């Protein structure tokens, strides 16, 4: 096993920087190959770059013109997408939208003028090559000093490698949607619920879930994977070295096909300094959830001469990644207690409260699979209920400028517009401990959601609401129009869509160069979806006005509505899709066409 790792490292080293003769362009050569992935307990065939999976870490410099030659050594077409990079659309690597793809034996030359810095990643955008292992990382060094200091850094890329190939997984999901979902509720669970809630309530609850052909355990479609950190299983124990008191920058990338991970380092607080490659105002957390395709850069400062565990438990608790931060070679951190109990979705995640609904009115047929393609979209009960976020909880997208970030759910009667100069001596009873970090409800989860994360040590769990741009990329201005995108799907047929329409049946979304479009994502499904717009930044509305963070991938939890705005400043056509591989493949995808803009020169392949 050690030999394999050394071989992989050698091949990886060969695949990195080769400076060309001209000083401003750096050239990289990548090959796409069939590889064997050996995680100790599992050996599968897969796809990688330069002979290994994960592929190499590419290092670019902000301001340089990068040239990447990608040679396809597979028997089928491939493509390489640079996730989060701003570039000419022909270089974006999406077959059918950016270019025709790279045929077996062909070499495609990507030319990218690098105009950003931070942590990003790249992966195949063809078939299921990315779930099969075709992914790698990108570090772009900034021109100016970064607003944080660190003494060393590591890329920490997370993956959910499954023994089955991606193609086989989709076939099985289509045949039986809960094929890979092990946590079915049993008769034992039924009896326990009856004891707790009474027979009538339990029967009614089971009937609701049954009518939707869904199970409250459907948090993870695909279980049975091995969690990998930098390509290594918990057994193989990826290790990063440090000297005590050093500041270490960890560049977390979630390159998974389908899995969200809850990341923590017991004993170490993490200061989040970047999200999706963009600097954020630093926020200290004990744990964070990283959605598929997102990146988070954190600074940690291990002070003790001991090994720390990097724990990444999947959101559905069916698997985990494990690695070590150690002061010496050959150490293995102590495995912290695993949280094995899988969270259960609640009715709140359905976007409605059980009491209000009255399922008799709906008719079971309309509810099946929540596919609203046929049903009228403005069912009044659904519409209102979907907006019900419980008593006084703050809604994402609401104007918080008058509220100064405080949790007002306990103080609804108070008028805070007159707060300046108010005598707080009467408020002596105000319990600041409840307002301390970690106790506030996360507005990006439905009130009462079963998915709401809690830090394992009871401390602070990162929320989107904590993300504020360090330096806003765009001036804040009102959006010129709003586009609603309902995230829809039919679990029974394992078919996913947007506005009830699959990619192949849908019209492209047409945007005008120069406008500022506001996307309204309404999640009408029971799953969380990480939505990724290629080529242009998404300004996530966290209620911070000009400080709203800039991202490339935005997670939308069940039963919630999330807003993001995009300055349409890149001509061409772009992919826009859910980054869960099997959702994207079955239709949760759109082509975005940008009309107008500066004349786009036809770029040659470079051959």
């Amino acid at each position, binding site marked *: 096993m050690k030999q394999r790792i050394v071989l992989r490292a050698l091949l990886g080293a060969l695949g990195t920087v080769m400076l060309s003769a001209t000083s401003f362009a750096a050239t990289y050569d990548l090959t796409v190959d069939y590889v064997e992935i050996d995680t100790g307990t599992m050996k599968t065939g897969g796809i990688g770059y330069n002979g290994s999976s994960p592929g190499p870490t590419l290092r670019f410099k902000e301001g340089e013109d990068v040239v990447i030659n990608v040679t396809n050594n597979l028997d089928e077409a491939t493509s390489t997408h640079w996730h989060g990079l701003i570039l000419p659309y022909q270089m974006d690597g999406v077959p059918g939208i950016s270019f025709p793809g790279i045929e077996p034996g062909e070499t495609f030359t990507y030319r990218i003028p690098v105009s950003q810095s931070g942590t990003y990643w790249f992966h195949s955008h063809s078939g299921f090559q990315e779930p099969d292992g075709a992914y790698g990382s990108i570090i772009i060094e900034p021109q100016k*000093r970064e*607003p*944080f*200091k*660190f003494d060393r850094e590591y890329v920490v890329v997370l993956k959910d490698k499954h023994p089955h190939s991606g193609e086989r997984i989709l076939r099985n999901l289509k045949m039986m949607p809960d094929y890979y979902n092990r946590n079915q509720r049993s008769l034992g669970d039924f009896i326990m619920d009856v004891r707790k809630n009474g027979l009538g309530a339990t029967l009614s609850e089971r009937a609701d879930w049954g009518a939707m052909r869904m199970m409250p355990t459907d948090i993870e479609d695909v279980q049975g994977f091995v969690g990998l950190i930098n390509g290594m299983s918990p057994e193989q124990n990826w290790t990063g070295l440090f000297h005590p008191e050093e*500041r270490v920058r960890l560049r977390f990338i979630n390159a998974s096909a389908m899995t969200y991970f809850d990341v923590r380092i017991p004993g170490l*607080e993490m*200061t989040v*300094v970047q999200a999706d490659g963009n600097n954020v*105002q*630093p*926020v*200290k957390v004990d744990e964070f959830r990283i959605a598929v395709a997102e990146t988070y850069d954190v*600074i940690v*400062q291990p002070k003790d001469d001991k090994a720390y565990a990097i724990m990444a438990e999947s959101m559905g608790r069916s698997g985990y990644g494990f690695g070590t931060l150690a002061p010496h070679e050959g150490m293995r951190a102590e495995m912290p207690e695993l949280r094995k109990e899988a969270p259960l979705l609640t009715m709140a995640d359905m976007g409605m409260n059980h009491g209000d609904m009255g399922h008799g009115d709906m008719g079971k047929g309309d509810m099946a699979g929540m596919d609203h393609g046929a049903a009228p979209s403005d069912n009044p009960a659904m519409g209102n209920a979907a907006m019900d976020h419980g008593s006084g909880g703050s809604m994402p997208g609401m104007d918080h400028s008058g509220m*100064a*970030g*405080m949790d007002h759910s306990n103080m609804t009667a108070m008028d805070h517009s007159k*707060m*300046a*100069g*108010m*005598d*707080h*001596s*009467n*408020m*002596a009873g105000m319990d*600041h401990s409840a*307002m301390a*970090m970690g106790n506030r409800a996360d507005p990006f989860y439905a009130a009462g959601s079963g998915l709401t994360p809690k830090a394992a040590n009871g401390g602070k769990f990162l929320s989107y609401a904590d993300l*504020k741009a*360090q*330096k806003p990329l765009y001036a804040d201005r009102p959006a010129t129009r709003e586009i609603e995108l309902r995230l829809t799907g039919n679990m029974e047929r394992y078919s996913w869509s947007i506005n009830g329409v699959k990619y192949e049946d849908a019209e492209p979304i047409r945007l005008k160069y120069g406008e500022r479009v506001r996307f309204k994502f309404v999640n009408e499904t029971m799953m969380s979806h990480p939505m990724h717009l290629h080529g242009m930044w998404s300004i996530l509305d966290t209620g911070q006005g000009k*400080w709203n963070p800039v991202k490339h991938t935005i997670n939308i939890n069940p039963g919630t509505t999330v807003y993001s705005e995009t300055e349409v400043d890149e001509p061409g056509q772009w992919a826009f899709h859910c980054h869960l591989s099997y959702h994207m493949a079955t239709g949760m995808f759109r082509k975005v066409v940008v009309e107008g803009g500066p004349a786009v020169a036809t770029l040659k392949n470079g051959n």
Partner: protein
Amino acid sequence: MPSFKKSLIRHIAASTVLLSTFAGMQAPAFAGAGHSGGHGGAATDIGAPGQLSDVRRTIRIVMEDNFFDQEKIIVRAGETVRFMIENKGEFVHEFNIGTAAMHADHQKEMFMMMEHGALEADKINMAMMEMDMGNGMTMKHDDPNSVLLEPGQSAEVIWTFPKDTELEFACNVPGHYESGMMGKIRLQ
């Protein structure tokens, strides 16, 4: 704005020195009290506000986003140093002399300031800072060992260092200390 801060600190520094003269000894408790050190005054001697006439050295410190232009200062035990601090960044920063423990406490307080809206990334809301929290305390930054500056502002701190304490200068705006905006003060 800048002159307000300067004169306030001078005023307090002068009055504190005056008081200690009457008391016949240094008053470290004064310097530590009022904000950090658990509001009760730390037992650690972190030094005291100094007199302009005792100044033997001037150190210029530049605040940027999110770091100081220096990572280490070496001063003589008992020396009186005049710090001229300028905020060349685009964000609010603090310059605060104290022990690591004091800074940790202060960070909690500054986090609350942000929660209450008294402090934003790029500005200080003076009105909210002066709000009485109900126990006679305000969030105002008027301790002689620290200054809180908006972008473009400058201020001075004149400080007489103690004989032997492990001190750091730090910015305790949420997240800045962890990002590296701090430095060690070595006493010779």
